[in-house]
């Protein structure tokens, strides 16, 4: 058991951090925040060239088959940098499609597209609140949604949409090509520096070749979304870490009453809580990612990662806003980028109500009387437990 990243990943992290610090420094992040498009084509090309957009695509579809944990390391640094881009939504969609590729030629085709630098993003990829509705047709499915705010949908080549068949309380996952005659995407600003596309689907017809999965129940969708949830944890841990670091630096340097603000007990208490939230979420996130890489059960810990990372970031942002005070409130002060990103990304995963219900749905059936050597999957001391098989 080793609960720290290895040297290869540490190098990857440091490299990503260097690239982002140089190519997307806070000054540039602030500029983009005020820019109507909010998109840095140069940094995007850099990310593509570094392989960040294709690293998690399986090799058989033209990608690098990198470990999900490695992609998580990159996303954590992206979160830390505050750079808004389609990278995280693309990563989430890649993870979901990779889950489906074995059984869906549409997913395999989409992954090849990603490997060829097509941009695929998905519905608030972690939300099954059913804001998109599907129905069966003679030719497949039809999907309707009045207004879905999907990050960077207006820059996407394809959308992955989780839709609910209301009458049957089951879910379908479909692919929608951009453009489509029955699809409207209107770019919009959001709480943070990501840009969203307000997606309207007017009974978009989805043929069998575009149905990624159908007839899923809620738990099936949870399993499908699990790797994306774990990746979202990494992004949000990056936010929480940056907020903590910025705040600590501020508190060390800002003096009032002849001493650093960081000596104030109340400031210390608040920073301690930020740190604990961040550390706990980071452990859950990398536990989830490493399990996905091992191919063992990870639904529970992935939901925990997404939720706790969101909580860590959002609560840190509230506490930190207090500590930065009026300075942190100013548009040209970088902290406000992370204040907004932390909350926005927390709820992009779905409402808190939805996240907590997902936790209940996934975790509560597994909570047992007695010791819990495994959070996910059966007790490892059961015969034939995959955890026994997976033990090193």
């Amino acid at each position, binding site marked *: 058991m*080793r609960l720290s990243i290895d040297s290869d990943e540490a190098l990857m992290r440091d490299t990503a951090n260097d690239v982002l610090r140089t190519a997307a420094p806070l000054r540039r992040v602030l500029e983009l925040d005020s820019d109507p498009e909010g998109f840095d084509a140069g940094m995007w090309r850099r990310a593509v060239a570094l392989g960040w957009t294709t690293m998690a695509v399986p090799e058989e579809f033209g990608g690098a088959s990198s470990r999900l944990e490695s992609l998580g390391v990159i996303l954590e640094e992206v979160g830390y940098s505050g750079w808004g881009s389609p990278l995280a939504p693309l990563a989430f969609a890649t993870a979901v499609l990779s889950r489906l590729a074995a059984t869906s030629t549409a997913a395999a085709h989409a992954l090849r597209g990603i490997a060829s630098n097509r941009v695929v993003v998905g519905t608030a990829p972690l939300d099954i609140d059913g804001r998109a509705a599907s129905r069966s047709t003679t030719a497949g499915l039809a999907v309707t949604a009045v207004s879905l705010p999907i990050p960077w949908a207006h820059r996407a080549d394809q959308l992955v949409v989780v839709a609910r068949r209301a009458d049957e309380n089951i879910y379908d996952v479909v692919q929608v090509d951009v453009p489509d005659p029955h699809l409207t995407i209107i770019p919009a600003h959001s709480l943070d520096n990501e840009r969203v596309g307000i997606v309207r689907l007017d009974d978009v017809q989805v043929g069998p070749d575009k149905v990624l999965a159908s007839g899923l129940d809620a738990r099936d969708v949870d399993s499908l979304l699990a790797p994306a949830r774990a990746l979202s944890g990494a992004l949000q841990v990056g936010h929480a870490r940056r907020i903590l670091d910025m705040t600590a630096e501020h508190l*060390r340097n800002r003096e009032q009453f002849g001493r650093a603000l960081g*000596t104030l007990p109340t400031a210390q208490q608040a920073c*301690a809580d930020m740190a604990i939230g961040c550390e706990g979420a980071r452990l859950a996130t990398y536990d989830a990612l490493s399990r996905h890489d091992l191919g063992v059960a990870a639904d529970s810990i992935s939901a925990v990662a997404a939720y706790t990372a969101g909580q860590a970031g959002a609560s840190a942002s509230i506490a930190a806003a207090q500590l930065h005070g009026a300075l942190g409130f100013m548009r040209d002060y970088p902290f406000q980028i992370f204040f907004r990103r932390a909350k926005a990304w927390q709820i992009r995963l779905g409402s808190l109500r939805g996240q907590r219900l997902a936790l209940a749905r996934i*975790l509560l059936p597994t909570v047992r*009387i007695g010791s819990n050597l495994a959070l996910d999957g059966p007790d490892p*001391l059961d015969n034939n437990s995959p*955890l026994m098989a997976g033990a090193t």
Partner: protein
Amino acid sequence: MDFQWTQDQLAFAADLRAYLDSLDVSDVLAERRIGTAEVSEPGAAGQRLLKRMAADGWLGVGWPVEYGGKGRSAVEQWIFTEEMTSRRLPTGGLTLMAVGPTIMRLGTEEQKREFLPPILAGETVFAIGYSEPSAGTDLASLTTRAVLDGDDYVVNGRKIWTTGAHYATHIWLAVRTGPVAERSRAISVLLVSLSTPGISVRPLITQSDGRTNEVLFEDVRVPRRYLVGAENGGWSVIGTMLDFERSMPYASTWTDLRRLVDWCASDESGVVLDEAEVRGTLGALAADISIARLLALRMAAEIDEGRRTPAAASMTKIWYSELQQRLHTSAIDIGGPDVLLGVDEPAAPLGGVFERLYRSSPMLKFGAGTNEIQRELVATQFVGLPRTARRASGDR
């Protein structure tokens, strides 16, 4: 990262489970009829169990083999604590996991020979004598005095919140051996038999019907050979023991959550488990328990790796103690008036466990180093904020 169990660890867990399954612990459970979260000392049956486990070679899992232990890793110590606590069985607590290891590290060879074997056998049990009526968080201001008279220290003073003093055999005693103004530089630690003349123990009953104690020392003579470390060097001895104490694994509270969920799902509860607010609250608690588990495992894994995230023990303690209170508060909030029924009331759900656990819920937050000070440690050691100046003289 690698969060997977090794075959060795799983084999250890399997052996432990098989051993515990072979025991009849009904008398222990009858003594500890309230939930896993309660920091409750073992009663007579619990102490018999510990001695039985010691005789069977199952105590001192993490102790070095040279001192009679099993030489197991910290992660395996976590497995042991998780298994024992989930079955509501005592673990040997501070004596086994903090006092013993401190004596191993800092004691004289004579002290090791005298104390380690009976600790491992479950025969010597220590209560911790730190706090005083005027010295709690500010332990360095303690005033219980030990004055050298020939080959003995003569101890006079008063300790409070000395949990377990009524059944322990010894007290790990922090005393002042130099000027009060020297604060932490004038403190020593003595190993004191509780049967020494001049010691009296008075019960203090907590709001959760637990017992702690006040211990009075009147001209208590303690042989000099029971000084741990150097005279006036006790602050670092205390620090070493605190390190071990804070590294003690926290077992998860899944059992408490499961009982709450099952009760909510039962017809008798009147709780609508399908209600989003109820399910969401329970789901969030499950997530928080997962985090507590990971923080505790991280501590254990790092001990085995020989590395330490600064203030990791403080983080774990804060999270676990506050989660406990959230869990037990949620049980009351969700359960409604029925769960307020007292622990001895026939109509109380699950024997009144919820109300009892709620009453005990504040304790872990101020005990074992109050959370405010723990947060200060996280802020200064982990986050890197400057220390708050308190009284500069005499403290390290």
